[in-house]
């Protein structure tokens, strides 16, 4: 018996849009919905392509076709078909089959003849989105820049809906940059992570596209920052630019920008603009989403990027990088330190950066055990745990030097 499809309905309100999904299997079903809350009344796009595209990877994980009760464009359907076919080819265990998306009507969705071709940009306050916003708004690439007319900051992605109180702090931190760029900052909240987010990070850009598409009657292009650079040796684990482009459709083009630049390249490009770098927010793990803790892996990596760019004490952190920050990083296996190699070490080495923190990083990276050795040790440990009685294991554990014993 074939798997029943998920039926999708669209509900358009003045400042809130919803997609309702009926018939999903598993914990998400049988009825669920995704909503987008907008800062002001915005006309809906003529096709549902962008909203549906944010959820197709989730449906492919469930192996269920989507029956869309609303209009879609042929261009959007073509792109979605390619996206699913490629994701299935890359990860058949995750995306179980190439699902079909069947709208009840297919309509042409051309842009108006007098469309100005302006863009709206997603903005999180991080390095990547700041780079994208500044290089287009300040036209650092000359004629190749889009005319950006606004920035969109989202509650519900990296800042969870439960931290709405802190979202205001994040917004306040982003406002000086928006003022400097002379662009309005639009806050949008969404619960799209609940369904579409199951395929995160692969669904990241399609979900950003679903947010930006709310502005598509004014803006033909949505700009979002790219994830891994083109030169990344591994393909497909995150959201490569080529696959992100498939979240576009006839009416709205999603462009992921900056894929040809490393993080240090981006800092170097922004070095002349302290207004851009002073308000950076890169931290995901600190207690306050509005500031950078300075100690987590992401913060330390960014500090190294600044160091490689010749800035030892950037103002977006409380103090300079210390060897103690590097000493506190967890480096259990090569798998876990891949980002440190890619976004830090390679760029430090390429620029010949030196110093006590760099030297400590080099020594620590050199000692990271290979994944295979670690997997082997874990397997041996697992076998030992099954073979040795618990009482004996506890006795050995208590006799090991430095073991904390519970109070009697």
């Amino acid at each position, binding site marked *: 018996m074939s798997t029943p499809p998920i039926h999708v309905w669209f509900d358009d309100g003045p400042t809130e849009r919803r997609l309702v999904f009926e018939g999903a299997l598993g914990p998400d079903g049988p009825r669920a919905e995704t909503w987008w809350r907008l800062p002001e009344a915005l006309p809906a796009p003529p096709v549902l392509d962008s909203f549906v595209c944010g959820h197709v990877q989730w449906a492919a994980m469930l192996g269920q076709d989507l029956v869309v009760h609303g209009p879609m464009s*042929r*261009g959007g*359907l*073509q792109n*979605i*078909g*390619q996206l699913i*076919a*490629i994701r*299935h*080819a*890359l990860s058949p265990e995750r995306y179980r089959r190439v699902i*079909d*998306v069947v709208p009840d009507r*297919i309509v*042409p*969705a*051309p*842009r108006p003849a*007098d*469309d*100005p*071709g302006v863009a709206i940009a997603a903005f999180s306050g991080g390095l990547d989105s700041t780079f994208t916003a500044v290089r287009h708004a300040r036209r650092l*690439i*000359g*004629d*190749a*820049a*889009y005319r950006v007319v606004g920035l969109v900051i989202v509650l519900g992605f990296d800042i969870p809906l439960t931290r709405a109180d802190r979202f205001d702090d994040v917004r306040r931190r982003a406002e000086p940059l928006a003022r400097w760029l002379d662009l309005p900052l639009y806050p949008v909240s969404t619960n799209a992570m609940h369904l579409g987010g199951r395929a995160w990070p692969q669904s990241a850009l399609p979900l950003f596209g679903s947010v930006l598409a709310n502005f598509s009657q004014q803006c*033909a292009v949505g700009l979002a920052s790219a994830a891994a*650079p*083109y*030169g990344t*040796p*591994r*393909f*497909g684990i995150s959201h*490569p*630019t*080529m696959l*992100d*482009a498939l979240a576009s459709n*006839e009416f709205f083009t999603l462009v992921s920008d900056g*894929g*040809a*630049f*490393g993080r240090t390249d981006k800092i170097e490009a922004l070095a002349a603009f302290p207004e851009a770098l002073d308000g950076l927010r890169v931290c995901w793990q600190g207690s306050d989403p509005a500031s950078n803790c300075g100690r987590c892996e992401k913060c330390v990596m960014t500090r190294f990027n600044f160091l490689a760019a010749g800035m030892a004490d950037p103002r977006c952190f409380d103090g300079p990088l210390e060897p103690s920050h590097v000493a506190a990083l967890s480096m259990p296996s*090569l*798998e876990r*330190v*891949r980002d440190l*190699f*890619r976004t830090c*070490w*390679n760029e430090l*080495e*390429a620029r010949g950066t030196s110093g006590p923190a760099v030297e400590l990083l080099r020594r620590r990276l050199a000692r*990271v055990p*290979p*994944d295979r050795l670690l997997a082997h040790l874990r397997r041996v440990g697992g076998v030992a745990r099954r073979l040795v009685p618990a009482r004996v294991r506890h006795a050995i554990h208590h006799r090991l030097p430095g073991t904390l014993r519970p109070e009697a």
Partner: protein
Amino acid sequence: MTSVLTVHGSRSVLERADGRVSTLELEHDGDAPDVVDGMVAGMLPAVMRVGGTLQVRGAMTRGAVRNLTEYAEAWASWDPDRFHRIRIEAATVVDGRRAASDHTAIVAWSGGLRSAHTLVRHLDGLVPAPFTVRAVLHVAGFAPDVTLPAFDVPSIVVRTNAVAAGLVDPEIGVLPIVAAALHAVGAGCTVGLHARRWLFTAQQRYPRPEPVLPDLLCGDGFVVRADGGTTSPPRMLADVRRHPALAAAIVAPTRGAFRDPIAAADAEATLADWPGGPGRRRLSTRVALDRAVTDARDTLRWLGSATHLRRPWPR
């Protein structure tokens, strides 16, 4: 450092910053388009080798300026020892031109299995929302020359001097020239399709065949799209066999046709007894030889990447 590109109809002349002059010709019966996006795409690899600024004496769409700038940035990021970022300055930048959404396409056909499959899957509707194929384009001037079969749709031939002029970049291949030909012909379509030359699964092995780029050889009025990359060669052949005349015209693919050794071997085995194919006995010897050469080349390439690109990648 400034290179200058001048376009005269179907002929463009590039005066490179290093003093060399190259001429690209794309001869066909139709009129030249009013923007020179395609010619810039065709000449781009030659400019990326020297870097600097490219001054274009002609009109370009803004989308083409942006896309081709990113194309150069992407290759510079992939292989910084060979390619450089460039800045494009066109005499006129055209705004507000968007490709109309009539969903029709012209398909580039080389005589190989991949491009035949791209054609068939849109003609027969084997993909979601297939394009309506209005014409087939063949670019003559790349070896080997093929005989065009009788397609169900009109065919157009563009003759180029790109190989003789040294404009086919050994790293990037013929794609920019094919894209330029698609732009030049257009055939009343808004989309030009070409076959992707590797399977996506090949991108999961290291070293990867090449960077995975979105469709960047496009302007605002005409889009050049890569197609395929998810179908195995035996499946492609089964699909192409629905059109006997087209299937008979397929030139047996060599290893170069797929930039993925596994897919290439798969395709060769599939086409061993095909007319013009190598035959099974010759194939096994050739596959063994090819495998040795490919392994040696990949090892050298890996060593090159590891040392030149300074990527002490843990895997």
